[in-house]
């Protein structure tokens, strides 16, 4: 039995919608099989009006034990630090968030907005948005770098725009079944079990990456999206090609370049002109190289790869 409260700030409901795609366990299974008690959720909650406020206040007073507080969306501080541009249940959402985080055993930031600020915090950040414990790469965010939930962990960051439903449900199940101690977090407080490997890990285009064969324009039936189309798969930590999306695919498998949405800098380059779906290069060398590879190594690697490239690699491979 674990009490979960889930609220949304500067959000699009995308993480809620993604969560509802979950199958093992499904959102309903969490309740019926794992004893999760969802106190309230903006898209699913039964109560309205003062009955919602009562739940919030009972959590704050301790009348209801708040085991897990899930927050989706940014913390909106505008205008002038008041948070009045995002009001909920009669007051700025940020005031509810501060108080609820203080009474929760575990605080989970779900999706890029809640982790690092995401799209709303893109320059010029018109809503003065922050993530719960980060703003982009900077530790601190709304709650401050020293914040810890009552169980002793900092905010558990589950990034992604949106987060994959399994990343959420598995962490909730881990906490609810007493395995929170096994959660190892990386420097950005992401569970390593999901975010140690790369988006490229398991990508169906890895052979083309290895031989430096490019998808030079969209909808080609061959090639790797890294060299021309701006794919960030080799530099992004996520299990998108290990735990498939909607059970069937991933962006890179379908032909869409990875945007790096589990990393704090998303959207990269603040979407400046010329940066969208185009690999940024200097003298023909990508500005951002695969993690851990230096420029010299990259030149050697791709030179050898090109030399070794078999003829089939330039032919269609993902064929009808």
């Amino acid at each position, binding site marked *: 039995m674990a009490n979960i409260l889930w609220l949304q700030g500067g*959000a*699009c*409901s*995308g993480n809620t*919608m*993604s969560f*509802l*795609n979950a*199958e093992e366990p*499904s*959102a*309903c299974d969490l309740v*019926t099989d794992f004893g999760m008690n*969802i106190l309230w959720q903006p*898209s*699913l*909650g*039964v109560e*309205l*009006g*003062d009955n*919602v406020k009562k739940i919030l206040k009972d959590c704050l007073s301790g009348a209801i034990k708040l085991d897990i507080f899930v927050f989706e969306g940014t913390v*909106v501080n505008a*205008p002038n630090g008041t948070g009045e*541009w*995002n*009001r*909920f*249940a009669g007051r700025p*959402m940020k005031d509810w968030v501060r108080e609820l985080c203080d009474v929760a055993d575990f605080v989970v930031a779900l999706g890029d907005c809640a982790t690092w600020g*995401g*799209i*709303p915090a*893109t320059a010029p950040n018109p*809503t003065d948005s922050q993530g719960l414990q980060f703003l982009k790469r900077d530790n601190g965010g709304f709650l401050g770098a020293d914040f810890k939930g009552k169980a002793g962990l900092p905010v558990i960051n589950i990034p992604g*725009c949106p987060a994959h439903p399994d990343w959420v449900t598995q962490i909730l199940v881990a906490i609810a079944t007493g395995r929170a101690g096994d959660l190892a977090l990386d420097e950005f407080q992401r569970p390593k079990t999901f975010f140690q490997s790369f988006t490229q890990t398991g990508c169906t285009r890895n052979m083309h990456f290895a031989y430096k064969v490019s998808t030079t*324009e*969209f909808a080609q*039936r061959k090639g790797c999206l890294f060299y021309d189309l701006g794919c960030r798969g080799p530099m992004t930590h996520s299990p998108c090609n290990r735990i498939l*999306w*909607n*059970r*069937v*695919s*991933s*962006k890179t*498998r*379908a*032909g*869409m370049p990875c*945007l790096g949405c589990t990393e704090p800098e998303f*959207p990269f380059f*603040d*979407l400046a*002109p*010329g940066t*969208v*779906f185009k690999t940024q290069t200097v003298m023909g060398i990508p500005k951002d190289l695969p993690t851990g590879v230096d420029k010299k190594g990259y030149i050697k690697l791709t030179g050898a790869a090109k030399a070794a490239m078999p003829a089939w690699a330039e032919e269609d491979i*993902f064929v*009808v």
Partner: protein
Amino acid sequence: MSANVQTLDISPVGRVEGDLDVRVDIEDGVVTNAWTSAELFRGFEIILRDKDPQAGLVVTPRACGICGASHLTCAAWALDTAWGTEVPRNAIIARNLGQLAESLQSLPRHHYGLFMIDMTNKNYKNSPFYEEAVKRWAPFTGTNYELGVTISGRPVEIYAMLGGQWPHSSFMVPGGVMCSPTLTDVTRSWSILEHFRTNWIEPMWLGCSLERYEEIKSYDDFMAWLDEKPEHANSDLGMMWRMGCDVGLDKFGKGLDKFVSWGYLPHQDKYNKPTIDGRNKAIQMPSGVFDGANGTHKHMDQAMTREDTTHAWYEEGAEAVHPFDRTTKPISNNEHDFDKNYSWSTATLHAENGHLEAGPLARELIYGGNHMEDWQYSDPLILDMYKNMGGASVLLRHFARMHEVKAIYRKMEQCLRDLKLDEPFYIKPKEQDGQGWGATEAIRGALCHWIEVEGGKIKNYQIIAPTTWNVGPRSSEEERGPIEEALIGTPIADPTDPVEVGHVARSFDSCLVCTVHAHDAKTGKELSRFKTS
């Protein structure tokens, strides 16, 4: 204080998306006046200024986690018209399929997750249908709730085959799509559609075959279908209808009685060189404005769109302007002043018709018109029901939404048949400056984007979402917005749990979270909460 004035203060009403305040005046247990206030500002239009022309493909699907495919559709077509691209037929089909998959997903998800659980509210405990409603539709544990919510994830698996994931893909790009589906993607999509039909649409939702349901063309046909077999009457559709009538959902929520749709699904051979002006004649599902007062239909023209900020939290002058002329200047002091400014939503208007209601009911009423071309889609059912039932209501609005399962399912089948796997999905366009406009119908209604590209970057980007139409505040002429108007006449049985207000908001599938403040209808003064006097 007058004995017949009741007071309530609801904050928030959930199961709509986002944050909304609604103020209502109540007299003799009935809403007599209403004001809707959008309570969340994220400034997407401001973020998009000076960015890469394609930034909208990344940013705007993330404006809405529920309608991301619809935003992407608009963003792509807006750039197509701005850049003057050529879009191959396969790409049009793939975009349509993506749009439709998202809409199909939303039918059971909204129906069970957001709308029907209100039928299990104790307000209806005296209804003869109540016990069965709780068994089927109670949140998380109801038999049909669990199946309906879980199976809602299946249609977007088709989207994921095209775009890699749902929500939040950006696979539609000017000149086409990023994917080039293979035969197995098509066959797997067929299998998913079949599974969805044989596990939910037919056995649970209709209690009959889709073909039998498609024979229903009029109100009388529907009533005959309902009586024809117990399987029909006891299906989730039959139960919804009978319980809805029993508890009076057909009696309130009428609204402005003026409707708008952009139409959607460009024909694969008629919109390959897309232009703003050419769209109305190229779409399968016709656009329109339906004026219920005189029963007339006409096409909708984007040039007639106006945004009026008189009562919104922006300082952009008193004149209603076309979105191309918007400047998006928020005011920092967003206090409620119901005589002046009280919402982040603008009043979105038609230059001739004023406020209009968007959504599935609007689409379906427009499909009943005779203003479209012969080859465009038409369906007389909802207009006939509207005429027989004395106009719109909460029940008809929700029924119209669920009726779309028929058109959406068949159009998806058509997309899968029409894809030609050996033909191109993308023609690389030339980037250039210009003005563009892209529109579609999200499941919850009319959605469109305007873009102006200048000097290789975005000069102006404007979005008008269905909820912008529906939740807008009063116009400069003091005409109420569609939801404001639809709340008038709503009965409130229990002021401590005014579920009826939720019915109205949820029948619009509003993309906002509601708060309701109640005020003395005579003095306008906010009264203390939960007291009746």
